[in-house]
């Protein structure tokens, strides 16, 4: 009797499998036809690194404080500091991101107190030579020109380390000329 029970349960389960696969046959595909269709990248998506500019003045937010450079675990960022003689403000003379070794961890973005550097959802940067993957300041600024970003809260003294990354951050009028606070020199 056991033999027949096994036999028929086997047939039943085989048919169950066929039913499962047949169920999906007429269904719409879940895949995307990649070059034609593209997935909308989420807000927090960590793609290529860009430098953000102030939307009003069009200048870089970066003050060359080197925090991102220190935070980078693979040493992909290289900054040369310089000082503007007239306004007495520091700015990055060169800002180089080596995308061949960048691991897109986002630690630089977290380290930055000035909304200067951000990882964006851009990802299509395949090239045939490694040289063109080392982005200079101008390219990074160009890429970050239209990137929308939420201003981080500037009161670093109140919360020294916690990056209060709440989703509904009120847009604050934080001028980029604010003096750097809470920065370990």
């Amino acid at each position, binding site marked *: 009797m056991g033999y027949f029970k096994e036999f028929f349960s086997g047939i039943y389960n*085989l048919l169950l*499998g*066929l039913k*499962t*696969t*047949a169920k*999906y*046959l*007429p*269904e719409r*595909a*879940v*895949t995307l*036809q990649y070059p034609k269709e593209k997935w909308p990248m989420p807000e927090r998506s960590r793609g290529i690194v860009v430098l953000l500019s102030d939307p009003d003045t069009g200048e870089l937010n970066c003050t060359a404080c080197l925090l991102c450079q220190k935070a980078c675990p693979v040493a992909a960022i290289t900054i040369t500091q310089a000082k503007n003689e007239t306004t007495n403000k520091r700015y990055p003379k060169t800002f180089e991101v080596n995308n061949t070794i960048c691991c897109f961890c986002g630690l630089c973005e977290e380290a930055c107190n000035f909304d200067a550097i951000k990882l964006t959802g851009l990802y299509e940067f395949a090239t045939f030579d490694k040289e063109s993957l080392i982005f200079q300041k101008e390219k990074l600024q160009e890429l970050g020109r239209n990137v929308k970003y939420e201003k981080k809260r500037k009161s670093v003294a109140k919360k020294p380390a916690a990056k209060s990354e709440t989703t509904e951050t009120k847009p604050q009028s934080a001028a980029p000329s604010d003096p750097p606070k809470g920065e370990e020199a």
Partner: protein
Amino acid sequence: MLELTGIIQWVGGIVTSISNSLGLPQIIIDIILILLIAVAIFAFLMLMALYLIWMERKVSGHIQDRLGPMMTGWHGWAQTIADALKLLQKEDIIVANADRKVHYWAPIVVFTACFAVYAVIPFGKGMLAADVNIGILYILSITTFTTLSLLMAGWASNNKYALLGGMRSASQIISYEVPLTLSILGVVMMAGTLSMGKFVELQGPYIWKWYVWPQFIGFCIYLIASTAELNRTPFDLPEAEQELVAGFNIEYSGMKFAMFFLAEFLNMFTVGAVTTTLFLGGWNPPLPALAFIPSWVWFLGKSLFIVFVIMWFKWTYPRLRVDHLLSFAWKVLLPISFINIILTAIGITIF
């Protein structure tokens, strides 16, 4: 009106009249006609194989919630042609210490064998290349050549995976040949003939005269055993991608690999065609009222449905292990097919 019989006779008539006017002897005319038929079938089969590969991709894609090839043409219809062109350009690699002659002949044997089967397949009304009176026996013996070629490929490749695959294929195909033949025996007993054309005639014109109803067990056994003969999942042990990488054809590249690949799909269509002829009424429509659809459409539709079912199996089931595979053949399929034969014999005697 859409029947191709008229066209075939018309072409045949033209060839005959031209040859007669040239004063060629009868034997030459026959040879020309046979060659023409062979070329026509060959062209059809090549198209069929390309289409089947595309169909497999589409079926698997849709079963797996994706679309399959989409880039080349409408829903990627030209994908297989592109692949074939790529394979044609590839270098033909023969590994060192391989048995070069056997390595060379193996794909040719399998391809020739699967092509030769179509001499006796009735594609439609009046579309049978050679109505030999032992048609089904011919098919059974010709398809066995596959074993030989797989064994040749496995042996000649000088590769351990290929050798294991070849050995597996030999034991597997020889084992499954037995229930396969016995399952056909039921139909043969009912029909009292071995001719493929007769089978079709006997199953017309109503759906309830098809042999699939009295011979349902035989039909199931035939489908299972022929899936095993085809080396397709769940019986694809000679290839067994996860164990033997690609089994017997691991060392084949370029056009030789393509020949194995095409032969696999052609064999699949062969199984569909034979199943249609034996069990599903061949080119007969289910009811005489549906005869306005040409017979070859019915034939192709039924065959492709069987092919689809085999594909459906492939994309649903895991693979058997080699000892289970053989014990399944000898311990399950063989007794059931004997029972089927006995039941058929009793049935024939009573009715």
